């Protein structure tokens, strides 16, 4: 202690090391900024690419068809009560041929009919059923153009030139229609209001969107209350012993289980033993909430643990019971963190397809589900199905569906951050 040490110039020592410290800081800052910029560029690239590809899907070309509601073609005799089973196909075909009298030959005539959507005849039927007086008249009717023609119109520089799937003959037909102002570009509302279809011009996302919404609703309603209750119990009420340790380890393990295992469980237990319907959002929601629960529990526990103990003491100190303290004070303060965990869990579930594969939600389903027990599919599956389809028009639809899925995710996040802010301001 008393040994004399030579006088040291501390300032000089610190000064000598300063430049090294500053350099380290600069390097770290640059690295951080670089990774941020790279990440941002990638996201921007991804988004702009998807958006660029998706834009064509939001528009659809329509074509004006002069329908000759000829009674003979329809096979209609005065006094017929049923209009359901008339020969609408014949009316459609013959009306089309009438518009192009110069076309001859079976092959060419088929190409002419192929310019229009395959459901044109059903449109004609709707018209007649709604208004039987049309029989015997000729009226214009706007129908959707065939998907190949639609893509052609969106991509071609010069209408009339052949491109990809449109040959010279078809291109000349399109040019004729175009020049006579029979083609119109409209906003494709049907993309949001109709279910899936084999025909790209008729396919929409509503079925998958509803399926996703219903599935997420079931997931949220099951996993949020259960997860939060489990977290509160484990943090605030459960004794700390070997059993709770085992439970904690298992919850952590559960969070790491591959999701397809949960799908197998859903198939074996929920469908086979409990007999719930296949392909239903109810089953999908149950399976996905099994997957989401560990995430919510872990996040909620961390968030509850972070509530300062002084708040619990304050509540206990004036005679609040454990339940009153937990639900009245701890839970509201932990809520922002719990909501963050919930949204992470739900976002995971939103993009999940593997567990749904097992319970039959990966299917071609045309009808929009009306309830949680109807057959349905979800957005990621829809995207996959479309991406897998050969028709060129599905390319844009796929990108558009991705945009819709992202939009759904943003809406979910936005509502969570709104709620979070509400809890934080209290």
């Amino acid at each position: 202690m008393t040994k004399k040490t030579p006088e040291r110039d501390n300032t000089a020592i610190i000064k000598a090391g300063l430049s090294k410290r500053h350099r380290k800081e600069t390097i770290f800052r640059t690295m951080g900024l670089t990774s941020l910029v790279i990440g941002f560029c990638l996201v921007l690239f991804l988004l702009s690419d998807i958006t660029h590809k998706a834009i064509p899907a939001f528009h659809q070309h329509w074509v004006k068809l002069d329908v000759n509601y000829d009674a003979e073609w329809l096979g209609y005799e005065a006094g017929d009560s049923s209009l359901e089973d008339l020969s609408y196909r014949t009316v459609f075909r013959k009306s089309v041929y009438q518009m192009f009298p110069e076309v001859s030959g079976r092959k060419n005539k088929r190409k002419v009919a192929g310019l229009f959507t395959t459901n044109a005849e059903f449109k004609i039927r709707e018209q007649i059923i709604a208004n039987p007086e049309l029989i015997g008249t000729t009226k214009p009717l706007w129908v959707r153009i065939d998907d190949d023609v639609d893509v052609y119109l969106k991509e071609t520089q010069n209408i009339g030139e052949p491109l990809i799937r449109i040959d010279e003959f078809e291109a000349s037909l399109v040019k004729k229609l175009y020049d006579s102002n029979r083609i119109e570009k409209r906003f494709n509302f049907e993309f949001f209001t109709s279910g899936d279809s084999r025909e790209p011009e008729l396919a929409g996302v509503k079925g998958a969107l509803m399926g996703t919404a219903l599935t997420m609703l079931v997931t949220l309603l099951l996993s949020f209350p259960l997860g939060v209750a489990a977290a509160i119990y484990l943090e605030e009420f459960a004794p700390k012993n070997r059993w709770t340790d085992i439970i904690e380890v298992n919850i952590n393990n559960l969070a790491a289980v591959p999701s397809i295992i949960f799908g197998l469980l859903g198939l074996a237990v929920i469908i086979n033993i409990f007999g719930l319907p296949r392909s239903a959002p109810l089953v999908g929601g149950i399976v996905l909430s099994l997957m989401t629960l560990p995430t919510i529990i872990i996040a909620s526990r961390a968030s509850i643990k972070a509530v300062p103990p002084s708040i619990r003491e304050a509540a206990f100190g004036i005679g609040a019971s454990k339940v009153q303290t937990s639900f009245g004070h701890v839970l509201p303060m932990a809520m922002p963190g719990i909501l963050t965990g919930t949204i992470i869990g739900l976002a995971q579930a939103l993009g999940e397809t593997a567990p749904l594969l097992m319970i039959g939600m990966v299917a071609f389903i045309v009808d929009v589900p009306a309830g949680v027990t109807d057959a349905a599919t979800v957005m990621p599956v829809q995207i996959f199905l479309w991406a897998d389809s050969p028709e060129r028009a599905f390319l844009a639809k796929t990108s558009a569906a991705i945009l819709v899925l992202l939009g759904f995710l943003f809406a979910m996040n936005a509502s969570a951050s709104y709620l979070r802010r509400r809890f934080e301001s209290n």
Partner: protein
Amino acid sequence: MVDISSSESLVSAETIIDGTVGDCFSDDAKMSMRNVNVYYADNQAINNVSLDLARKQVTALIGPSGCGKSTFLRSINRMNDTIPICRVEGSLTLDGEDIYAKKMDPVLLRARVGMVFQKPNPFPKSIYENVAYGPKIHGLASNKAELDEIVVTSLQKAGLFKEVKDRLEEPGTGLSGGQQQRLCIARTIAVSPEVILMDEPASALDPIATAVIEELIDELKEKYTIAIVTHSMQQAARVSQKTAYFHLGQLVEMGDTNQIFTNPSHKLTENYITGRFG
């Protein structure tokens, strides 16, 4: 060089504590503690302490850090129940009722024996909600008007009403430290407790806020029995009628505050209050 060895001897356990000296019992006791031992797992934090809290008097618990005064205070309203490894032995009574009896509900006990903590800990809610919370959970007010009345009188008793009457809906956490602590006192007295325990209520406050709190304690003793843990000897001398000196988990000396500070009987007490350690 500082002579460390001599100050060590002042606090070493060898300085014999052979039972409590002084007058630790009262004829008019609100709460009586007899032979209290408190353990954290295997560590004994309180060793055979017996004392009374005299009715409508302020009892100050003083002593160096880690001497167990806070632990003792928290045993009186069973706040230690929340610590699983904590174990309390001995007899603790409130008006003759055993507070650790099976039929004693800690919720009721804490409503009767309120507590104010070292760090002001208002709820992150409005000033009104902070005070109204206790009466609400205990069902003390049957309608809004009654609740308003309780909130206003509690804030008045805590000497805070004038400062906050125009902003009762603002968050309690937005007040200054001293105001927050008075809000916590208002919150405690809103439940009309019989005893108020204060764990270093002014240690996080500046001298002016401390003076306000001390004045308040002086007024509160007209209605409540108060026990206060403090590190400030001046504060103990100013606000209390009885003082108990704790050392290493034992009660060394207890008596009238005047007597303790002017003429302590025990060597340890004398050393502590004269500032030779602690």
